[in-house]
């Protein structure tokens, strides 16, 4: 007797769970506003990428052309495929020799967007941008210098 009750409760629960699944998919079938597909080339003008999207590595600059990069080279060390090269120079401030960034070279063509550089930067100098249309005819143009010419180190950054 116990087995018979078990048998019918099995059938009942199976039907119930199947109907639950069909209710979920049926809801999506009739509610087209849930569709997540973006029709890319047509909606280019209105396309908004997500906050977390990793399009390219950037170095944010303030309005007075200041960045936060101290040229420590931690991002270069952490990059798994060598897409970052740090070139530094020295500058004498108050009689002391100080290392500053000359060029932060970023090879977009080698980048896998793992995010280790952004994560490990001690002064939060790097960030991800949302631009993803990187196709070019000359691959040389994929090598970028992230610090803008004439930019200086933000005074608030501690070394």
């Amino acid at each position: 007797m116990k087995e018979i009750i078990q048998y019918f409760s099995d059938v009942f629960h199976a039907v119930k769970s199947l109907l639950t699944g069909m209710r979920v998919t049926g809801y999506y079938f009739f509610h087209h506003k849930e569709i997540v597909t973006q029709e890319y080339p047509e909606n280019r003008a209105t396309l908004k990428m997500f906050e977390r999207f990793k399009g390219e590595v950037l170095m944010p600059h303030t309005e007075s052309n200041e960045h936060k990069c101290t040229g420590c080279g931690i991002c270069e060390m952490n990059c798994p495929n060598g897409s970052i090269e740090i070139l530094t120079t020295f500058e004498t401030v108050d009689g002391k020799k100080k290392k500053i960034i000359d060029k932060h070279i970023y090879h977009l063509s080698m980048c896998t967007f793992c995010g280790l550089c952004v994560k490990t930067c001690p002064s939060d100098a790097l960030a991800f941008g949302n631009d993803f249309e990187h196709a070019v005819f000359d691959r040389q143009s994929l090598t970028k210098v992230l610090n803008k010419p004439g930019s200086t180190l933000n005074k608030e950054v501690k070394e």
Partner: protein
Amino acid sequence: MAIDIYDFTGMTSAIHESLSAVLSPAATTIVEMTIIGIVFILFYALVGLFLVYAERKVCAFIQCRLGPRRVGPRGIFQTIADFIKLLMKELLMTKNADKFLFNLAPFIVIIASFMAIGAMPFAKGLHALDFDIGILYVLAVSGIGVIGILLAGWSSNNKYSLIGALRSGAQIVSYELSVGMALMTIIIFAGSMQLSEIVASQANGWWLFKGHIPAIIAFVIFMIASTAETNRGPFDLAEAESELVAGFHTEYSGIKFAFFFLAEYMNMFVVAAFGATVFLGAWMPFHISEMIPYAEYFNMGMDFIPGFIWFFGKTGMLILLMMWFKWTFPRLRIDQLLTLEWKYLLPINLVNIVITAFFVLTGFHF
């Protein structure tokens, strides 16, 4: 010759008379068969292409996607473009494949579904094959399809194809039983195996409603088992992309693959049309009981809709239901598949037939 959209008997008999006036009886039969064959081939191609498009759209909406949208307005020409692409593809052949059987298999599969379509009552008077054992005929010819699948798997000289074909064989041998048993319920209710008589017996209400509980159980079992028979998800073990590449049609390319693909969708149409005929009264309009007030006006309104619209509407609803299954449920394992059939569907079905017989004897149904 006026075309009456409610009753095609006049149109077909007019064609028959005008043909037999000029031709001998034998020639008349041959010409009529050719006309019907051409009509069915066109119908087959159109419905097949439309169903592929419909399936892609339905599954896209269920998965929160948009589906094909680029070829033609809302992508309606997508399947035609796909078909043209497949026509131009090279027909590949495996080394050491059994060439004759390899080439024969797609035709057997497609012929099986083609023959089953002939027995469908599309509208009043539009019924090409009306045997007095119509249900048996449809079951028999749709069972031929599995021979094509087995041949395809065997002759491909490929392990995935063979495993897929064997699974398909095990599946169809099991589920054919359930389909037959579920239809037995309606045969008991209607007292006939002739499709036109089964349709006529539903003039005052469809069997799904008239036969209440046993008919509903039989309908659910029929839908499950016939989905399994057409090798569609969640019973698509014979194709199982994640395990068997593409199952029995792994080695097929170009138009031979398109044949299998088309046959799969036409089988779905045949099963849905068959279910609509047996359980939902084919082209019979929806009628409610005379006991309800103003029922006659409602019934007259329903009669105003032509029969073929009812037929395709019901078939379309059942096809939608099958697509809904496919894109909701995960695929069963082979042991789960056989457990479902032999431990659940078949015993429930047998008990259901006994209950049906009891209902019919006591006159408990409407």
